[in-house]
C-alpha cells in the first residue's frame, strides 16, 4: 500500500514531462548552444572577429535563462487548459544545498583537470567527459521523475562520449556536435510527445464541436 502511495505521489512529477514541452524547449536550447559553440570556434580562427567571441558566453547564459519561462508559458497555453494546472514545489533547501555541493565538487574536479592535464589530453577528454556527466544527469532525472525516455538520452550521451573520444576533433567542434545531437534528439522526441498529447487531450468542452 505504501508503494502505491509512492507511485501516486510521483504522478505530479511525471506530469511535468507528459506533454513533451520541457524536452522540446531544452532541445531548442541545446541546438542554439551547439550553434553558438560552433560559431565561437569558427570566429576564433579569424583574428578580425575574434574579440566578438566574448559575446558567446553571454548568449549562452541568456538562452538558458529563457528556457524555464518559455516552458511555463507553453504549458499555460497548451497543457493546463487541457489536463489541469499544477504548481510544482521549489526544491527543498537540503536538495538545493546538495546540488550546490555537487556543482562545487564538479568545478573543483574540472579545475584540477585543467591544472594537471596536458592541453591536448584535456581537449580530447573534455567533451566525452561532459557527455558522461550528462548521461548521469539523465539517469538521475529518470529515477526522480520516472521518465523512461531519459534512459535513452543517457544511452545517447554514452554513445556520443565514445564517438567524440574516437573522432579526435577540436574542442569546439566536439561540444557543438554533442549539444547539437542532443538538441535534435530531444526536440524530435518533445515534438512527437507534444503531438501525441494534444491529440489525446482536447480542451474540455471542445469535444462536442
Amino acid at each position, binding site marked *: 500500500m*505504501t508503494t502505491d502511495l509512492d507511485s501516486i505521489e510521483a504522478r505530479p512529477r511525471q*506530469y511535468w514531462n507528459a506533454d513533451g514541452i520541457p524536452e522540446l524547449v531544452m532541445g531548442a536550447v541545446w541546438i542554439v548552444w551547439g550553434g553558438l559553440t560552433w560559431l565561437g570556434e569558427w570566429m576564433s580562427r579569424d583574428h578580425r572577429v575574434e574579440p566578438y567571441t566574448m559575446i558567446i558566453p553571454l548568449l549562452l547564459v541568456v538562452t538558458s535563462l529563457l528556457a524555464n519561462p518559455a516552458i511555463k508559458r507553453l504549458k499555460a497555453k497548451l497543457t493546463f487548459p487541457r489536463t489541469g494546472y*499544477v504548481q510544482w*514545489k521549489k526544491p527543498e533547501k537540503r536538495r538545493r544545498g546538495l546540488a550546490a555541493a555537487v556543482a562545487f565538487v564538479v568545478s573543483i574536479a574540472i579545475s584540477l583537470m585543467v591544472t594537471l592535464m596536458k592541453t591536448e589530453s584535456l581537449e580530447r577528454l573534455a567533451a566525452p567527459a561532459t557527455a558522461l556527466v550528462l548521461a548521469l544527469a539523465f539517469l538521475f532525472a529518470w529515477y526522480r521523475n520516472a521518465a523512461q525516455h531519459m534512459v535513452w538520452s543517457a544511452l545517447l550521451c554514452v554513445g556520443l562520449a565514445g564517438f567524440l573520444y574516437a573522432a579526435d576533433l577540436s574542442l569546439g567542434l566536439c561540444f557543438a556536435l554533442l549539444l547539437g545531437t542532443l538538441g535534435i534528439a530531444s526536440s524530435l522526441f518533445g515534438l512527437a510527445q507534444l503531438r501525441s498529447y494534444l491529440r489525446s487531450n482536447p480542451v474540455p468542452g471542445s469535444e462536442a464541436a
Partner: protein
Amino acid sequence: MNPDLKQLSDLDRLIHEPARLVLVALLSGIEEADFLYLQRESGLTKGNLSSHLMKLEEGRYVEIEKTFRGKLPLTLVRLTKSGRKAYLDYRKRLGNFLANGA
C-alpha cells in the same frame, strides 16, 4: 479491543477514505493544483470530488481558492500545514501497522 484493530482504528478517518487518500497523496508533493487536474488524476466525478474536497476543507487539511484565469473560473487546491502533517503521520502509522502485521 484487539491491538491490531486498535492500530487500524487510530488511523485518521478523514484521510483513510480511498478517494481522499489519493487526493492528499497527489497534493503532498506539489504547491497546488486545480480542480481539473485532481479530477483527471483521481478519476472521480465532479460531484464526488467537490464533496471530498469539502470534507478535507472542513477538517482544515486543504485550502480551496476560487479565482479566475482570464474569464474562466479556476478552483485551486493546496494542502495546509496541518494537512501535510496529518498525511505524513498517516503514512507512518500505516507503515507501522503493515510492518507489524507482516
